[in-house]
């Protein structure tokens, strides 16, 4: 399968006052469609920055980031937003649901922004996904009425509802207990397998990395290596007792 993400010599510097802080110091990476990729590394290694570049939330200072064949540096702000809307789904560490909307409305949001489907089609798509993530009965609840795991399921449904080619998840299990976290990863994996959606998630948790098809390790904003979970010496947690 062709590369859905192609990062070449990406450098990202942030300016804090007069000080230039390098976050990424030249990273190259290719992600093919259907991968279940983990970006690993300690805090400050540049995981989030890399995800931001891939997620078209940010553009590199130098080098190129291509997403779905488009060079993000060449795109306008509006075009980047459009690219996010149609190609990428986001899962956040702290779920980031709109607190005043119901579960159903939260999931429906990307479809509404796309303005492509009628009400009935949207509802059907949302309900199917709710079923898939297992929280159908909570459709009319507010996020504040749900547990952390349930909220992340809503977030996953929202990320997938517009059928993006790529889903980015920034530490998706960091705010969850290990059992719930594993359930969430299992769900993501299943969707990766059945829908063929490419997942890229960042984590510093060894157990979480073990679920990935391959692991990209970062340190100090630099690419370390790209390995399989087996090589990293981690094993997928198989339903702990």
């Amino acid at each position: 399968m062709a590369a859905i993400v192609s990062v070449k010599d990406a450098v990202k510097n942030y300016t804090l006052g007069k000080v230039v802080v390098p976050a990424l110091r030249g990273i190259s990476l290719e992600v093919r469609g259907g991968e279940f990729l983990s970006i690993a590394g300690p805090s400050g290694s540049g995981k989030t920055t890399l995800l931001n570049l891939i997620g078209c939330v940010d553009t590199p200072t130098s080098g190129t980031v291509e997403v779905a064949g488009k060079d993000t540096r060449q795109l306008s702000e509006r075009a980047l937003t459009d690219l996010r809307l149609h190609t990428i789904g986001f899962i956040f560490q702290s779920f980031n649901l709109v607190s005043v909307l119901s579960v159903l409305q939260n999931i429906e949001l990307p479809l509404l922004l796309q303005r492509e489907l009628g009400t009935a089609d949207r509802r059907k798509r949302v309900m199917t996904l709710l079923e898939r993530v297992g929280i159908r009965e909570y459709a009319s609840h507010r996020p504040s009425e749900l547990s952390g795991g349930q909220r992340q399921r809503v977030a996953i449904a929202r990320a997938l509802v517009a059928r993006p080619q790529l889903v980015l998840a920034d530490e998706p299990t960091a705010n969850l207990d290990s059992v719930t976290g594993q359930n969430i990863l299992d769900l993501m994996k299943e969707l990766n397998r059945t829908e063929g959606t490419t997942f890229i998630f960042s984590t510093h948790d060894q157990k979480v990395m073990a679920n990935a098809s391959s692991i990209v390790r970062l340190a100090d904003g630099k690419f370390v290596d790209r390995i399989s979970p087996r090589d990293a010496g981690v094993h997928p947690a198989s339903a702990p007792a």
Partner: protein
Amino acid sequence: MAQRRLSAWIDTFGVVAQIAFRNLFASRLKTIIVGGIIFFGALLVVAGNSLLDSLDASMSRSVIGSVAGHIQVYSDKSKDGLEVMGSMTMGDQDLTPLDDFAKVRQTLMTVPNVKAVVPMGISGALVTSGNTIDLALGKLRDAYRKRLAGGLSAPESAMLDRQIEAEKGHVRQIVVLLQGDLKNLKAVADARAISADDAEAVNRAASEAFWAGFDKDPLGSLEFLENRIATQAADADLLFIRYVGTDLDSFGKAFDRMQIVDGTAVPAGKRGFLFSKFVYEDQLKLKSAHRLDQIKDSRDGRGSLIAKDLDLQRLVRENVAQVREVMLQLDALKTADFRAKLQKELGSTNADVGALLASFFDTDDQSFDRRYAFFYRELAPALELYRIRIGDTLTIKAFTRSGYVQSVNLHVYGTFQFQGLEKSTLAGALNLMDLVSFRELYGFMTADKLREIEQLQKAAGAHEVSRENAEAELFGTKQTKDDTEVKPADKGGAKAGAQPHGKHVVADATPGVSPEIPELAAGLGQRLRREDLVDRVYAPGETQRGVVLNAAVILKDPKLIPQTMKAIEDAGKRDGLPLKAISWQKASGIIGQFIMLARIVLYVAILIIFVIALVIINNALVMATLERVKEIGTLRAIGAQRRFILAMLVIEAMVVGLIFGAIGAGVGAVLVAIVGKIGVPAKSDIWFFFFSGPRLHPFLGTTNLIVAFVAVLLVSAFSSFYPAWLAMRVTPRQAMSEEE
């Protein structure tokens, strides 16, 4: 496809609105505070403006309908501006007269929007009203004259005797009152302040000896009373009255709210005077009776109570303290009559009528209605209730512009009022007079006076003397050719020539009568004054020719005041007339500006409220934006464009603005409707004028609703600009940050 896109648009808007609504609901307190301010602002816009609009409308009805008309026209050469409602000063404004009203009228009528033009001159003068003792002495003198003339039958003579005794009793009564006054004065004032002569005269008039010897020299005794006593009993005072000299006929037609209350209108073409009902009641009515009327009005009309209202208590006190005015009217018979009636009514045995009257007037809420009815039923028929009666001749003395005192006798035909403005001091301040009399009092040379002078000159053989040959004229050296102009024999005119007297009379420009020419005194001069002028009927339009000070213009379409003012001034320029046109607001001076002032205050208040609203809403939205940075970042990350965020915030502000604004405007409208139904009562006389009646019924103007809507919309929009700008700068990256 297009339909689907449209429905998707609507759905997106739905979500945006829903987010907005739910956010508002989530932060209820903030919403209520912000909404409350908007609510109050909208309420104020609607209710305040409606109230002012109605006040404006009713007041303009009052001003326009009573004297001003829509536009006032006067000479642009005038030094002062015209103020028809009277300036704060008593004096007249310095207005340059318009020489020929007929021409002015002709010019004004060429302006298409002009419906009617009413000539006017506004001025004021002093009027002396009758003095009780003068009247009594006058009647006594007439009776004595009749007796002296003789030739009466026995019953006639007996009746005359009774009348004389009754009048004498009345005058004695007055003298006794004066003596009492003098005693009181001694008790409170320094003895030196009291003229010894006056005191002596009163004591003499009160003495038995004076009255015993009265009939020996009745006319001499009367003269003593007139010269020495009447002057001290000054119950009559000088009255300053303001009047409009106008063409009474066209005035009545143009100001159709005018109605005759007592008497009749001045017959067409005649000279005459109409009192404003308000002035007639307020200034000319017996004070005690007027105070009773005022108490009744206040109790019946406004539900006031003597027990609670300080003004009413003051009126009662004044009535108790000032029974003298009534007492002065009582002769012996009436005194006895009043004593009997009051003793019975009050269940008192007190023989002092003054004390009885005082206790009669000392009323409270329980006794008032009964006493009021009793007063008018039993006492009033024996009293002169008005100092000047309808049908009397009124002598008006005025200072002319050149400083002479000019006086005119005018028949009082009746009283008038403006419908709805019955209680208004302002609308009732002006009395009406015919234009010819006004011109005379103001010092203009009228055609009548010119003729009168001409006839007098002819009759007296008088002629104008120029300064150069004054000496020759006066001392008889006939040297100049001017002498040929002396006309010893008139063609028509008076039979009495100047020749018998053997000398010329140097032109006497004042219309007074020379005592040296008795024929003239008896004939021409008085005849001209008395018969010709008072009874003369002027042809329609005749009074309109000549000088006026200003003119009221009534319009066909009152909405076009500014345009018509311009058209009038243009027409004046075209016809060579120095016309200046001012709106009724300006012509009514400070009264017309009252509404403007109130409106400015209201607008400032509304502005302040909306500025506060703007600041608070802005602040609240900024807070909300900062609280929601993560949410906004998330929305941006999942693909919401900046305009979506903008719409979300603006809608949020608009929703608060419109919902609370609508409720505020609605409550305001309901309030106006309720108050409009009940009416705001006029608390005092001046409000009758502003309200154009006893109650103001505010009405809702749709403009006010629109103004409120636009104001709320603008405030909402402006207050969301800055927070929206902040929100649009939120980047999707901010959704990722984890510093919570």
